[in-house]
C-alpha cells in the first residue's frame, strides 16, 4: 500500500470504511443489496448483525436481528426464540428467504441463515 492510499484510508471516517467493507463482502457473495430487494421475492442478504432484540409477543418471545449490509438495513425475525447460538451483534451472516417490504425495510421471517467469517 503506497503512502497515498494510507493517507486516504486514515482520512476516511470509520463508518465509511465499515460500510465499504460490508458492501464488498456482499458483492463477493453475490447477495442482493438491501436497497434493491423486491417485495415478496426470494433473496439472499449478507451483512453484519447490527442489533438484536427480544420482543415478547403473544405469550412467547421473538428474536429480531437488524442486519446492515452497507446499503441499508434489513430485519430477520425468528419466532419463538430468545437466542441463536453463534449469532450476536457484529457477526457477519447470510440470511435467505422470502422478503417482505411491509414494514418499510426488508424483513425475513424464520430465514435460513449461515454464519460467515
Amino acid at each position, binding site marked *: 500500500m503506497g503512502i497515498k492510499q494510507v493517507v486516504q484510508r486514515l482520512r476516511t471516517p470509520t463508518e465509511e470504511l465499515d460500510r465499504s467493507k460490508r458492501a464488498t463482502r456482499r458483492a463477493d457473495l453475490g447477495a442482493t443489496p438491501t436497497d434493491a430487494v423486491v417485495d*415478496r421475492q426470494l433473496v439472499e442478504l449478507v451483512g453484519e448483525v447490527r442489533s438484536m432484540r427480544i420482543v415478547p*409477543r403473544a*405469550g*412467547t418471545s421473538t428474536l429480531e436481528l437488524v442486519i446492515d449490509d452497507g446499503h441499508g438495513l434489513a430485519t430477520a425475525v425468528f*419466532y419463538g426464540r430468545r437466542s441463536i447460538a453463534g449469532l450476536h451483534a457484529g457477526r457477519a451472516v447470510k440470511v435467505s*428467504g422470502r422478503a417482505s417490504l*411491509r414494514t418499510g425495510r426488508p424483513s425475513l*421471517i424464520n430465514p435460513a441463515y449461515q454464519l460467515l467469517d
Partner: protein
Amino acid sequence: MRVCIAGGGNVGSFIAVELRDAGHEVLVLEQDPAVIGRREAIPGVTWHQADACEYRSLERAGLAECDVVIAATGDDEDNLVVSLLARQEFAVPRVIARVNHPQNEWLFNETWGVDVAVSTPHLLTSLVEEAVSVGSLVRLLQLEGGSVSLLEITLAADSPAIGAALKDLALPRDATFVAVLRRQHVIVPRGDTVLEAGDEVMILSTPAVEPEVRTLLAARPTR
C-alpha cells in the same frame, strides 16, 4: 385482489362464492377429489386438488402472488401450518385463519403467521353478550392482532357516566368514543354530547386502558 382459500368444505366454498361476487380472483385448495367433484360447478372460482400443508402445492398455486390467504379447513393444525407457510415462505400480506376448536384459539397469533383469527364460538358469544347485556363492557372486534379493540356498552341507569358531557369524562388518552347509538339513531360523539341511560356507546380502545374505560362507564365492577 387475489385470494387463496385452503379447504373447500362448506366454509371454504361459501367464502369463495362471496369473494367471487365481490369481484376478487379466488383460488381454492382442496385435498379431496370427491369434494372438488361436488363443487367444481361453482363458476368463476379456480380449484386445485392439492395438500395446502405442502410447500410445493402452495408454490404451484402461486401463493407468492396472493394478497390474502384464508386457512378455512376443519382442522386447526392444518390451518396453523397453512398460515405459517403463507407468512414465512410467501410473505403473504394478510393471513386469516379459522379456529375450529375454541381451546386452540390462543395458538392463532402472529407467531404462527396469523393476522386475524376467526372463531365461530367466540363470535357467537360476543354477539349474544352484546344483545343481552346492559351495563357491562363487551369486546366486539379486535384489530391489528389485538392491539386495539372496538368495545360496546349499553349504559345502565346507575352508570357513573350518565348526565355527563363526553369532554368532562376523563377518558384515557388511548381510548376514544366512536359512536353513540340512541333510540336507533347514530350520534357522532362530540365533546358536548351528553350520555343518557340506555345509550349504546362504542369505544375504540387499547387493551391496557380497557379497565379504566370500564370503571368510567360500567355500572358496577363486572367481570
